[in-house]
């Protein structure tokens, strides 16, 4: 807060440094210098402002070379700006300078406005600072926790969780896949062929209790292999009238009645 009204008097080097530390950056210092011109911010002389800033920075550098970078960056930029502002009007570079000066002036006005806004806010009676609300507010709300919060999604989630847990607790037994094997087919054929004196279709020898199509096909294959095996050993005879036609089998017992038609 050492910043205000320190610009009119020439500053000693020490004071200058202290002075710089009191600013929140180059823009802050520029605004303070501009305000010292005691004119409307819309009509400040940017050129004079640049000179003042550069003088302050030059003074500060003489005693402290490691001046913060942003002060120097601003100084460099203002030097550039000054060079443009000194050019005769009409040159492109001079126009550039004018535009840059206007941007700077606008930024200063912006900051100035926000300063004023902060001051305006700070001057208001603040709650907890100057004015106070009721220290012991009362609450008339009574909570009633007797009701139940139930909804369908929760019920569904609960049901699924219960079922999952229920099944998880049961011992896992893989479903027994019982396929009709060749051994089974051999046994069955041996038993059945005795009671079937005539040619019979192979699928008649499938077991009665078959699950799905898979089991049926497995049984059919096993029975075919079994019958081929038995035919090879001469226990039975087989024949097929047409390609993909039914495969017929019969026992060798009745071989007297029939021509051998192997295969």
């Amino acid at each position, binding site marked *: 807060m050492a910043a205000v009204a320190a610009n009119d008097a020439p500053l000693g080097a020490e004071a200058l440094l202290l002075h710089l530390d009191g600013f929140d950056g180059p823009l802050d210092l520029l605004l303070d210098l501009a305000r010292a011109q005691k004119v409307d911010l819309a009509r400040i002389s940017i050129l004079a402002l640049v000179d003042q800033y550069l003088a302050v920075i030059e003074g500060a550098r003489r005693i402290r070379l490691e001046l913060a970078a942003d002060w120097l960056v601003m100084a460099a930029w203002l030097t550039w700006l000054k060079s443009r502002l000194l050019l005769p009007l009409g040159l492109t570079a001079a126009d550039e300078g004018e535009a840059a000066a206007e941007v700077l002036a606008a930024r200063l006005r912006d900051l100035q406005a926000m300063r004023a806004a902060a001051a305006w806010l700070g001057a208001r009676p603040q709650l907890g600072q100057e004015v106070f609300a009721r220290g012991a507010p009362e609450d008339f709300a*009574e909570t009633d926790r007797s009701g139940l919060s139930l909804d369908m999604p929760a019920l569904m989630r*609960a049901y699924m969780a219960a079922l999952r847990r229920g099944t998880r*607790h049961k011992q896992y037994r893989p479903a027994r896949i019982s396929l009709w094997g060749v051994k089974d087919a051999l046994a069955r054929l041996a038993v059945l062929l005795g009671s079937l004196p005539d040619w019979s279709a192979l699928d008649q020898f499938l077991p009665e209790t078959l699950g799905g199509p898979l089991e049926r096909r497995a049984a059919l294959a096993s029975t075919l292999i079994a019958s081929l095996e038995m035919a090879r050993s001469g226990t039975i005879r087989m024949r097929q009238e047409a390609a993909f036609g039914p495969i017929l089998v019969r026992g060798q017992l009745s071989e007297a009645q029939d021509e051998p038609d192997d295969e």
Partner: protein
Amino acid sequence: MTSEPAMPDPEQLRLAEALIFASATPVTARALTQALPDGAEAEAVLAALQARYAGRGVELVEVAGGWQFRTAPDIAERLKRVVKVPRRLPRAAMETLAIIAYHQPVTRAEVEEIRGATLSQTTLDALLDAGLIMPKGRRETPGRPTMWGTTPAFLAQFGLADLRDLPRREDLLVETPTPTVEAPATLPEPEAPDA
């Protein structure tokens, strides 16, 4: 000093009013005396302030050895409002309820079988107290266990018109586990409470 109570200085009244208003705890007469200018009589200020607020929506009352503004009791009664904070059912209760809903009528042992966990009496009582389940006769098996089913209040709680409005089990379970307890092949029959 006269013996009759003089009307205190209005500024003292304002300060006392503001102080008691802003304080989080009751303001003692002693604390008020310290805040008031020298020579001010806290008792007189308090009495005047109390008189000013008499019959109003807010009153100055003496509590816990100090003074505090409090809402007039008759108004407090009118401003009272009940905020409903519904409880959630514990998980076990919710699961049990769901199983009973889908498998009713179902015995306790069957619920335990499906959940794969014992069903505590507390859980059963909670559901009974909430009026969500009720006994539905006994199973004619050894021990004649009680069978449970849901109540009309259950339907009301979940906004169901009918038990058939429960989502189909098939739609719930991607991989349908096969509970050993036989579930009704279709949906449970709707209860006809007034049949």
